[in-house]
């Protein structure tokens, strides 16, 4: 048939790709936003010389000798203040510890602040040493700044996971609901288009973008911050694919009945915000109470982030990440099956 323009699947996929590439805002959220976020956080939390801890010495008898003993410690910055001023600075967090000299020394601090506890240890050691204490064992420090253990190394896989989640869900969910609210799904339903091909084209267009966005975010992390890639790139690709499948399915599910873009936006947030918080994007999910760890682990974004970190940072192989893959595939398949059942074409 010479008149025929080619397979419908190609045209349907091109439709999605054109819509995305002709939408500059979409390109920003997919590519520029995660890179800017990584850059900002990477700079904010870059490894630097440990900050000196501020310690106030309350004016009074014995204050000067305490100040000189503390000033000998490079990790401490010492100021002499009257008692009211010292207390105010402690309360507002500008000093970590107030030293009140006298016949016995009093340390005033908030024990829930880790820098205060650290300042207390340093000040205690300095004052004891100044008073003539001798250390009984010799201790030497060996410092490490190895790639793989810094915050940025933790962050980049998390941002990658986050990006796969949000572009997957928005890309599929938004596109479908917009098509439905334009009464275009109904028009397609009236044509001989095969419905499976429509859904497949959404996934294919998504895949093309996925490759680009993973390469750009991960490439940025490697080039700009030296984030290590210790495991196999093939395994990274497998994990990324499984994640994309899980979130395409979730996106499809969220979009399967919603009539308006506003409606689907609300649903998207209900699904995504808990994962932003719990799935260990910006900090480890181990901080949450043990009781909810099994729930957190069952989330698809947790599996994606943990899988990416295991392969990129620890060089884990297939056996170590099989569990993560299983969780993501289960989400993908279950959500897809349910969506196809409840999908509304008009």
């Amino acid at each position: 048939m010479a008149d025929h323009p080619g397979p419908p699947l190609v045209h349907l996929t091109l439709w999605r790709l054109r819509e995305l590439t002709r939408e500059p805002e979409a390109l920003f959220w997919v590519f520029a936003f995660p890179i800017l976020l990584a850059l900002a956080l990477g700079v904010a939390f870059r490894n630097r010389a440990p900050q000196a801890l501020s310690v106030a010495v309350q004016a009074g008898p014995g204050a000067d000798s305490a100040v000189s003993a503390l000033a000998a410690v490079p990790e401490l910055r010492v100021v002499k203040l009257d008692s009211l001023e010292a207390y105010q600075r402690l309360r507002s967090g500008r000093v970590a510890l107030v030293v009140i000299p006298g016949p016995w020394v009093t340390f005033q601090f908030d024990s829930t602040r880790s820098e205060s506890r650290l300042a207390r240890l340093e000040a205690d050691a300095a004052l004891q040493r100044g008073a003539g204490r001798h250390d009984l064992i010799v201790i030497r420090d060996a410092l490490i700044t190895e790639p793989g253990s810094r915050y940025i190394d933790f962050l980049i896989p998390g941002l990658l996971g986050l990006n796969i989640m949000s572009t997957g869900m928005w890309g599929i969910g938004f596109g479908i609901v917009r098509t439905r609210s334009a009464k275009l799904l109904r028009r397609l339903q009236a044509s001989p288009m095969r419905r499976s091909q429509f859904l497949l084209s959404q996934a294919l267009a998504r895949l093309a973008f996925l490759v680009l966005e993973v390469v750009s975010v991960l490439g940025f992390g490697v080039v700009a911050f030296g984030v290590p890639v210790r495991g196999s790139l093939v395994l990274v690709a497998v994990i990324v694919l499984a994640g994309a499948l899980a979130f395409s399915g979730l996106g499809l599910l969220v979009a399967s009945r919603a009539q308006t873009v506003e409606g689907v936006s609300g649903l998207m947030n209900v699904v995504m915000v808990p994962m932003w918080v719990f799935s260990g994007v910006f900090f480890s999910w181990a901080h949450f109470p043990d009781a909810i760890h099994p729930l957190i682990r069952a989330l698809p974004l947790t599996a994606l982030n943990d899988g990416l970190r295991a392969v990129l940072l620890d060089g884990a192989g297939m056996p170590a990440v099989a569990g993560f893959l299983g969780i993501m595939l289960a989400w993908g398949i279950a959500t897809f099956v349910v969506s196809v059942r409840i999908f509304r074409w008009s």
Partner: protein
Amino acid sequence: MHRPDGGLRRPAAIRLIATAMPDTSAIRCHGLVKRYGDVVAVDGLDLDVRFGECFGLLGPNGAGKTTTVEVLQGILPADAGDVQILGRTWGDHEHELRQRIGTQLQETRFPEKLTVLETTRLFRSFYRHGMPAERALGIVELEEKKKAWVKNLSGGQRQRLALAVALVSEPELLFLDEPTSGLDPQARRQLWDVLGTLRAAGRTVVLTTHYMDEAERLCDRVAVVDHGRVIALGTPRELIASLGAEHVVEFAVGGDPPAPEHLRALPGVREVRPEDGGVRLTVAQPHTTVPALLALLGREGAELTRLATHHATLEDVFLRLTGRSLRDG
């Protein structure tokens, strides 16, 4: 490349069927019922559309026209009744029928950031047979806009694109749901020209509209639909002739109008109907009725505030059948 027939060919299948089986209907629909909850949208509707005709469903908004064509197109399931399209039923031959019909639905908004040509090609790709996308755009006179994004089209151009998309598969049967709704007069006339060429080319078209002038101008036969039923059926000429007279005289007076029996006694008056602030007469010949009417008003001392005459239209037919105007819904 402008050919006199607008580049249209009559599909071979239609020619064959039309000659081999002259009695076959393109659509046969009997006792169609469709409910939405307690609301009965279509209430036992019968239709018989012949090959090669342009068939109009005329009625006010909410009469059940859209529901009817959506059931005929297999988008909505019917609650009761038999529907045969091109001699087939939706249950048994859905995929085949989808290949053979073309459609333009109400309110479809095509992707904003695809071009006109890309949109037409996308839909062309779903069909095994059809014409090149460019030819379909030529028929609706949208070739110049083929590289424009849909977003930048006017309302009339969007409707013509919808028509091109419906035509690109060279359908044996074409459904058009309110094709000129919401367009300005110029855009409507332009679309009518395109639809006129389709009709001239002998395509089978089912058209819904609430514009009586559209039905009169485009349709070979019209079914007047109200409350989900066909209340009159025939050619526009037959329907108008059923009024018994071809002209309408409307007038209003300052005080009370003359008694209806006096008006009915005027020469050539077939019907008298009081309407908002005036009276409406259906008459055979206005040039004999109007002078007599003026004389009557003069005798009664009534002051004439408005007088208008027009050829009877399908609007008058609808008014006669339902007591309501098409525009009132």
